[in-house]
Every structure is written in C-alpha cells, then in structure tokens.
C-alpha cells in the first residue's frame, strides 16, 4: 500500500510518500507551476516515482491539497456567474449585513459591492416563497419565469449559476426544481443551489457562499479533470482524494459538486500534520504553530482533534464563507514580515511582508526593508552560509544595514532593535494564541507547541516562553508538515440541518427522524463515491445557544436514538461548555437547538513509518561554536552558541541551550536556559523548564 501526499503551495509543491509494507518514506519538492498547477503536480510526482523506484500502478492513494479555488477568489478571477433568487431580494449579496468593513474610513471599499461575485445584471428574481418554521410553501415557484431567465442568462454568456432562495435550508424543493429546469436550458453550465452548498440560516452568508462556489466552480472542475486525466495518462490509477477545509479529504466528485469545500484547505493539512507529530510524541494537547513567510497559522489540538469553527467566523477575501472548517487562527506575521516605524513613530512588525521577492534584505535580491529574517540573522540565529541546506547564502551586512537604519530612527542599539523586532513579532503571536486558549478557558501551560513551517522553529521557543508553555516539538521536516498532514487525512463528510427547536418543547420524533435522514444522505453519498459504510464512522453534534442569543456553541451527541435522557445530558453539556467558553452559564435559561450536524469520518489509518535512525553523536553533529545574542534576565547578552547539524544528532542526548540546529527546510533555536533532545520518533523536544 503506497500513499502519496501532494501539497501545492504559493511557491513550492511538496511531495511525500509512504510505503506501508516497508515503512519507507521520502520527500520531494518542485516549483509550483502557477498557470496550471497540475503540470507541476504531475512533473514532481513522476520525479518522486523515479527517485523512489516506485511503480506508478503501485500507488494506491493520492492525497492532494489544492489552492485553485482559493486563488480564484483571492485574484477575483472566476466564472461569469449568475444568480436566481426570490422576487424582492435581488440585492441580498450586495447589501450584506449593511455594515462597513471599517469603522473609521470614508475611502474604504466594500468587497461585495466593489468586487461583486455576481453582477446585478446577472441576478434575476422569480416568484415563489417558503416560510418558517417548516418551509411551508406560501407561493409556488414560477417555473415559466425560471425557464425564461435561464435562456436570458445563457444568452448573456453566464456559465455558472447559483440558485438561492430564502428558507431553502428548511425546504429545498424550489431550489431543486429550479436547478432541474435551468439544467435543461443550460446543460453545460455549473449549476448549484444554496441548500446543497450550505443548508443553514442567514441568507447573506449562505447566498454568498453559494455564489463563491459558483464563481470558482468551472475553474476547479477543469483543474480536477485535467489532473485526473494526466494521472491516468501516466498510469497512476490510485484513488485521488482532495483536501477540504474541514480537515478531511473528499472525493473529486464531491469537489465538483461543492467546490467551496476546498476554499481553506491549505491551512487544514498543516494542523493535521502538527497534530500527528504531537500524537507520535504521545502528547495529548498541542498547539500547532505554522509560520511561513507572511503568516502564522495557529491550531489547538486536544486528543488528536482540532475543533471546527462556528459558522460565523470564516471569511475569504472579505467574503463570508459558511463552510465546515477547522478552527485555525491566521495572523499576518512571518519570516518576511517587515519592521517599520509608522507615521506616528510607533514600532511595528507586519502584517506587510517582503514575500519571496524581493524578500528580506539578507537574500540580496533587492530587499531594502528590515524583516524578521534580517533580525534573526543580525542576532546570529541563522547560519549565513547554511540557509536552505546551503543552496542560498545570506548577506549579514545587508541585514545589519537595514536593521541599523531602523535602530537609528528608534535611537536604540542595533542589537536592541533586532531583538525588538522578534519580541514584537513573538508578542503578536502569543496574543493570537492566547485568544484561542486563555480567552476560552484553556490553559496553555498544559500544552506542547509544535513549531512548523520554515520559521516556526526559529520563534517557537520564545513564543512558548511568553505563554509559559513548557515545551516545543520540532518535527523531523518542519517545512513539509502540510504534505504529511495530507497523507494522514481521513475522509470526512459533513451534513447539517437547521432546526430552531427549544429545550422547553423538544420534539424527539423530529430529532430522530432528522438524524436518520442525514445519515441516509451520507450513505447515499458514500454509495455515489463507491465507498462502503464500513469505511466511515459517524459523529453527531448540535449547535446550541440560549434562546435569544445569536452565536452557537457546538456540543457532541452520542449515536443511537435520542431520548429525553440524552437531551438532558445535551443541555447539561451546553451549560458546561458555555461556562468554559465565556466564563458564565445561565442554567435557568431555555436553550435553542439551531443546527444538527452529522460527520462521517474515515476509519483512522495505521501509519507505519520505519523507525527513526539515529546513530549520530553530538561531536560529529557540531558544526561550530560561535556567538549569538539572546535576552536573559532583562539584558541582551552574547552567548557562546553551539551550531549543530540536525540529521547527525543522537537520540535522547541532552543539548544545552543556547544552541542552533540546522536542517535544509528550517532552523531551530534553542535559547539559553532551555534544553533539547531528539525524541525516539526523530522529532526534537525543547524543554523550557529546568530538568529535575
């Protein structure tokens, strides 16, 4: 059984494979081919096959992370999209929640007004109205009008269509009928409905999500089809699985049906990879901390699981996105983040980044602004002649110059300025982690921080210290954790139904019949994907709030028949979660069940990697000893620092900080007063408390 993970990033496409029989694994990297990323995917995959002497036919499964949908939205390049909606509501996606993105700005633009997903001329309305609480038909759908509109839209060149009616989450009848009718007129168009894409209340958000799916639909379809064709042309016949934002993988058929599923998938794989590394080190609570050039992604993983966000917190390019999505917090802070003094003279780091071009001044590619990478170099925390495994050398003088200019403006010492850049960056990151832990009743001191991405292991230890997190785990290949995450991702199907039931008068029959219907729907989808029900297990949950509140909290529910007793447990659990999340519960208040959810998740795979080989010793691993600067007890000091080559380190031998560990895809900093050890799994564990 051979599994391959392929992750398309902005700059590189990463590959990893695992042979289950032998435990053999290897990684590979090629430049991402921007125009058609499937070209880079195939080229790299063939190189990987060649390198590992694999038979194309022997690859059983390919797990793929794609940014096609994401980029299409970010760049505003998508289909000529149309919408059919209710009479009287042509402008729901234009008016939005009538709120401006910025409080204090006259000259701002509003994404959904200045960059509409569907232009008003292609938004058409028809008679037909459903009403709550059951989706009762107040007025029938005007089918002739639907047909007339479809012909008109076809005539105007619309090739993708979103059908969005009010209350369709209660009753999809009108949307389904309209889709059938339009399909007759526009057989080649991408047509979807809001009840298929995201059947939950809040019309602006649901319609926008559906419009996003339609906007990217044709492009994603083309990409997936190209990829499937190229794979089969090259005799690679294994199953293709595509990463979704919910942290699971889905079949190409599902992506073609709902392209919005992949909108935020890039982030999800990284968290899975980090979670897996934590599990291998037998840590039950980890914070995954993935820092690239421009951003840092933070995930909280408890017992191997990262929770999904509530449905009101996700957006892409300013548009709300109602999609199941792992709860990942992204901030604009990374290795390329630029340090500057703003107009009022305040010292700031990021969110602007020097990116890969021109990059930090240290790259010598014309970067003139001081970045986080430059600060690390000035402090001696990067090895100028051993960056990217020696493929690139860094210009220390260039870094000193740009950081020095900033220091002059601040009227502080060069080293103080360099260290200040890191402190501000680290504090921003620590605040972001606090918002996901301390502010939700979670104590970060019980966690391990998994530092990933090119820059994660550089900052990880100091950020952990700010949060009193006791240890940092640095994976074997920190730069390729997303591809690793793909490899271990399970299938995941989500089904959701909006309820609005109250705890004062719960309708048990309705709970049970809805769950049964939802599970039947998943069985149907599994069958369409050619999978058997044995390949998944079901997880139920409900989104609850106190009657009157506007935000829900997700509470898990056991499988089997819902009884009075299981509801009592559900209410009790909600009070408890509310208390943890907000610091208070209102046990006297009635509770409203807003949504029911069923997830079907693939059975976890046993991943067998060959045992980690570590026959190195400390002496051979030592590259040199030189000065590096750290702050200790409030003052900046020069420390004699050991520089080691990571892949030559022995297992379980204590390395005293300060030390710097070099490897091709990252650099690990072990600060003074910390110790590091290579774990038997090959991951490095940095302890920030004195060993007893």
């Amino acid at each position: 059984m051979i599994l391959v993970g392929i992750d398309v990033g902005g700059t590189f496409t990463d590959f990893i494979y695992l042979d289950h029989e032998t435990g053999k694994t290897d990684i590979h990297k090629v430049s991402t081919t921007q125009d058609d990323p499937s070209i880079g995917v195939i080229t790299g995959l063939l190189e990987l096959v060649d390198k590992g002497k694999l038979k194309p036919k022997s690859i059983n499964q390919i797990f793929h992370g794609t940014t096609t949908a994401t980029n299409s939205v970010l760049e505003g390049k998508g289909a000529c999209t149309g919408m059919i909606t209710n009479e009287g509501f042509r402008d729901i996606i234009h008016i939005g929640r009538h709120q401006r993105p910025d409080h204090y700005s006259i000259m701002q633009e509003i994404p959904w007004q200045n960059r509409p997903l569907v232009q008003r001329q292609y938004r058409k309305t028809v008679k037909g109205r459903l009403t709550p609480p059951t989706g009762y038909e107040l007025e029938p759908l005007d089918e002739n009008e639907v047909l007339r509109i479809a012909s008109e839209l076809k005539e105007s060149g619309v090739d993708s269509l979103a059908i969005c009616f009010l209350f369709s989450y209660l009753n999809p009848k009108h949307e389904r009928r309209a889709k059938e009718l339009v399909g007759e007129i526009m057989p080649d168009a991408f047509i979807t409905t809001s009840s298929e894409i995201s059947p939950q209340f809040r019309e602006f958000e649901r319609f926008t999500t559906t419009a996003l799916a339609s906007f990217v639909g044709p492009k994603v379809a083309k990409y997936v089809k190209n990829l499937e064709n190229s794979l089969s042309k090259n005799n690679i016949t294994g199953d293709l699985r595509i990463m979704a934002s919910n942290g699971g993988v889905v079949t190409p058929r599902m992506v073609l049906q709902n392209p919005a599923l992949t909108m935020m998938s890039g982030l999800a794989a990284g968290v899975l990879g980090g979670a897996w590394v934590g599990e291998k080190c037998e840590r039950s609570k980890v914070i995954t901390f993935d820092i690239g050039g421009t951003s840092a992604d933070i995930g909280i993983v408890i017992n191997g699981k990262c929770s999904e966000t509530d449905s009101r917190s996700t957006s892409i390019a300013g548009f709300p996105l109602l999609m199941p999505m792992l709860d990942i917090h992204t901030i604009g802070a990374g290795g390329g983040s630029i340090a500057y003094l703003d107009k009022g003279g305040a010292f700031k780091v990021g969110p602007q980044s020097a990116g890969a071009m021109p990059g930090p001044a240290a790259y010598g590619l014309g970067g003139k602004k001081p970045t986080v990478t430059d600060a690390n170099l000035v402090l001696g925390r990067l090895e100028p002649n051993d960056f990217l495994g020696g493929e690139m050398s860094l210009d220390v003088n260039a870094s000193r110059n740009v950081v020095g200019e900033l220091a002059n403006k601040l009227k502080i010492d060069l080293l103080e300025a360099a260290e200040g850049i890191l402190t501000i960056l680290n504090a921003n990151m620590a605040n972001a982690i606090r918002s996901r832990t301390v502010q939700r009743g979670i104590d970060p001191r019980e966690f391990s921080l998994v530092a990933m991405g090119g820059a994660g292991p550089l900052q990880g230890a100091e950020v952990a210290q700010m949060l009193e997190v006791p240890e940092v785990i640095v994976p074997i290949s920190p730069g390729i954790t997303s591809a690793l995450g793909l490899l271990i991702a399970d299938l995941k199907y989500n089904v959701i139904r909006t309820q609005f039931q109250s705890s004062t008068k719960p309708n048990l029959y309705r709970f049970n019949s809805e769950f049964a219907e939802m599970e039947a729907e998943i069985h149907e989808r599994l069958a369409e994907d050619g999978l058997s029900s044995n390949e998944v297990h079901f997880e139920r949950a409900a989104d609850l709030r106190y009657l009157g509140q506007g935000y829900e909290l997700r509470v898990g529910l056991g499988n089997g028949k819902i009884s009075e007793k299981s509801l009592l447990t559900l209410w009790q659990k909600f009070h408890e979660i509310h208390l943890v999340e907000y610091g208070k519960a209102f046990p006297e208040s009635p509770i409203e069940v807003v949504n029911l959810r069923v997830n079907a998740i693939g059975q976890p795979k046993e991943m067998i990697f060959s045992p980690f080989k570590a026959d190195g010793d400390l002496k051979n691993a030592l590259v040199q000893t030189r000065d590096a600067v750290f702050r200790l007890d409030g003052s900046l000091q020069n420390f004699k620092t050991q520089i080691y080559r990571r892949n030559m380190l022995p297992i379980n031998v204590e390395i005293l900080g300060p030390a710097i560990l070099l490897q091709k895809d990252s650099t690990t900093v072990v600060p003074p007063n910390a110790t590091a050890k290579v774990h038997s799994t090959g991951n490095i564990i940095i302890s920030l408390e004195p060993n007893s």
Partner: protein
Amino acid sequence: MSRIDPVTGAVIQGALESIALEMGHKLMRMSYSSIIRESEDFGAALTDANGLQMCECKMSTPLQSGPIPGYVKNVIKVLAERGDPVRPGDVIMHNDPYGGASHGPDVAFCVPVFLDKLLIGWSVTTAHHLDIGALSPGSCGIVDAVDTYAEGLQFKAIKVFDEGKRNDAVWHILRANIRATELVVGDMEAQIEAAKIGSRRLLELVKKYSLEKIVNAFHDLMDYSERMMRDAIRALPDGEYCATTKIDGYLDDSDPARRELPIKVTLKINGDSIIVDLSGTARQVDDKPINMPLAGTVDCSIWLTIRSILLDSVIYGSIPQNSGLTRPIEIMAPEGCLVNPIFPAPVIARFCPGNQLADTVMKAFAQIVPDKVSAGIGNLRVVALSGLREGNHWVHMEIMEGSYGGRSGLDGMDAVDTLYANTRNNPIEDIETHIPVRVDRYELREDAMAAGQWRGGIGAIREFTFLDDAGFSLEGEGHAFEPWGFDGGQSGHKAHLKLLHTDGTSTSLPSKVPYFRVKAGETLVSTGPSGGGYGNPELRKKAAIDRDIADGLISLKTAKKLFPNQF
C-alpha cells in the same frame, strides 16, 4: 518624549487591544437581544483611574465605545458628591444622558479595577437595551417623550453590586419597570460578565509588567494618537470653514419652530488644533427628544467624523482609539441649543440628529480636503416593532441603513450604515423565525441615483408585513432634505415611509412616528435615502453609466436625463 522603550510599548499596546477585543467578543456572543448580537450596538473599553480611555474593542460600534470615558468621569463625580467611595467588588450601572451617557437605553456597567487597595482603572461595557421602561414599547422611536423622565428609568451611578454583594432591590425595580425583562436582564448579566473579564485581564497585565510600565505605555499611546491627529491638522490651511445642513424635526407639527432645524458647524483651524463651533445651530426643542447630549453624542459624532476623514484607517492603518486622539479638538456648543440641551430636555431620539451633525462636520471639511470626504450621506432610521404574545412582550429593533455620497475616485457605498453608526441588519431568516413579521422586500432602490462624476450610493427598500396585530415606532431623518451633492454632483434622494393597509389604501408617514398600532396583514414600506453625487456628471465615464443601466439601477431614460452629454 517616550516614557517607555518602544518594544515594551508595542507589546503592551497589543495586550490592551486584545483585552478589549475579548470583552466585546464575549459580550456579543453571550447577549440575547438582536440589537447587541446582530446589530453590534455595544461597546467595550478600558480606562485609567480617571476615565481616560486606554483601549476599545474594535468590533463594537463607534457610538458605544466612544462615550465610555464620559460615563466613567461622571460616575466618579457623582459617587464623590455622594460621599460613596468606589470599592473592590463594586459594579456600577449608569445611563444618565446628562452625565456622559449617549442616551438612556445605552446602559453602562463599570467595574473598578483595584491593585490591592489602589484604584488603577475601569473596565466598562455599554450596550443598547431593547427597553428601558419608557412610555411605549422598545427603546427607539420614543419620539414623543416630553422630558428625560418620560424616556425611561434613569440610573445615576447605581451600585448593582456593592463590594461583591448583589443589590437585589435595584434588580427588582428594574424587572418591574421594563418590558422584555428576560432579554434585557440577560443582556445586562452578559455586560457585567464581560466587564469583569476586562478587569481581571487588566490586573494580570499590570502584575506582569508593573503599574508604572502600563501607565507609561498608555500615556505614550495617548501621545502617539494625539501626535497623529495634530500632524494631520497641521497639514490643513488655517482658517474658518462653515457648513449648515437641516434636520427634519417634526414634519407634521403645527409649530414651524419644530420643523426644519438647522445644524451649523464652523471649523476654526489654527496650527495643530481645531475648534468646532456649533453656534448657529437651532435652539433645543424643550419637549421633544431630538436634542443631543453634548457628552456622549455630540462629542463622539465630531471626533469620529474627524478621525474618519483625517486619519482614514484604510490609508493610515489602525490608530489606537484613546483620549489622546481627541485632545487637539475643542467643541463649543452654546447652552440651550440642540447640541447642548438643558436638563430635563428629552434626548432619547438623538441618534439621527447626531449623525446629521457628523454629516455637517464632513460638509465643512469638504472645503478643506475634498479628496478625503464623501458628498452628503443618506441618514439612518430606527424602527421598533413590538407586540404581545402569550402575555409577554416581543420587541424587535431594526436600524434602517442609509448610503454614502460619491467620493473622489469612488462611487458612494450603497445601503450601509453611515458615519458614526456601523451596526448590522438582522437576517430575514432570523426575523421571520422569531417574531410574527414577514419581510417581503429588501433590495436597492431603482432610478434613485444622484448623478456625479462619482455617483452617490443607493438606498434600500424594505417591506415588513405584520402577521399579528402589533405596533411600531420609528425615529428617522432625511424625509425633508436631500443629501448634499458636492462639486457639481447632484443632490441625493430623500427617504420615505408608508403603511399599506389591507384594503389597498396607504398612509404616508413622517420621519418620526410615535407608537403606532397596526393590524395583521398591514405592510410597512421603508424607502432609504440615496447619498449625494460627487463631481460634475459630465465627467462620469460612459462605461460606468452603461454598467448601472445594465444592472438595472437606472433606466436608459433616466440615464439620458442625468448624463445628457453622454448620449
């Protein structure tokens, strides 16, 4: 001169902002009524011991966080006058519109923060409550209150917790005197909880860095914000710039002195400071609640408009909102006029006049920085729908959006909240699920666009059909006067309101409607205003005109009328 090193300053600033965000996040998520959780009509901020604002929650609406320093200063003053010291464990409720509050329904809960025995700051949340016990249901559209007493309960620095002990009497009085009790009390509990969180976090921060460092960092931050504002003002030419607009007043009133009331703004720019002189504004209306509290409404309206123009966050990034930002601005408002009423002149319906004041300030700035303003905005309206169901009141408030005028290089924003308000509408699917009302229309007006090189934003039409016998009340502006066009741009379009009866007839209504009974099946139709045009319509690009025609926003016939040179 900095009091603290720039790195620690930046770190403390981030920590303060993150505290205010957490307060707002939790308040919004815990609260019950849609006016807080959906409309986001709430505020959260920390102040120092004297009521100088340290930070505010970026999620909250400007008109809620802005007044917090005023609330705190008045609470301190009132308690001192009473000889009642502030003690640890106190939670103080305050809503006095003549004592810092923006108006009565905006109730603050103030938690003093103590480091051992030393008062070091205040953690405060404010929120607009559904009902505050006024003469008719809901807390908006009380346009017939004759004085402050008729506007509802007044809480002047009342300790709802006294050294940690709940003052039950206050809560009993409150429960007996307000409608939709459960929602309002639930929201107040959420406010108290969020304020306590802020207090706890501030204390943690002080313990981590020392009080001295926090105070120093905070004073540096105020200086920073002040410096930004002074630099921006210094770049403007000295001089006096004057603008006037008018509010509707009571259009159906027989007394002309209550109709068409002028608001006059004179900006006196001198070096790096501005005096905003409001002389020439209409006298107060003694027995109608459209007067504006000077502290809490007038000051915030002016401050927010000036920072949105001179330090536009899209151009300048986010500048800490604190008391430093307002130091260079002095406000002069003659006593006894609309913008500085004398107690007990009623003020509860000050929302729309306050936004008109903001618009007038912008109109004055248009003469100085034409590239940084919009033409006249379409003002807002607020409606309360209410009724009785099984003996309990239901109340639903909805803020009806306006629109912006055209801008240099940009058309106006369509159908949004304007200037000092930035709330959110309620999803139709939420409204219809929870109250006996059906929404029959929510879309842009057609053929109501102000021409200009950059066209004005377009207002929205909303229709609410009542499914039970019920009532509504409404406060609004913009029925009598068109939003101003700028630099050759056309004036905008007025707002309208009418009630469609079940027999097919209709009644046209003014912009202020006190509690009005409606029957099941009647429909309230609200037509929102369109903002003014910017620049000569002859200069508008033909492609932009064609797009608006294709989009159905204007007909070809109207387009030919508005842009004759292009056809």
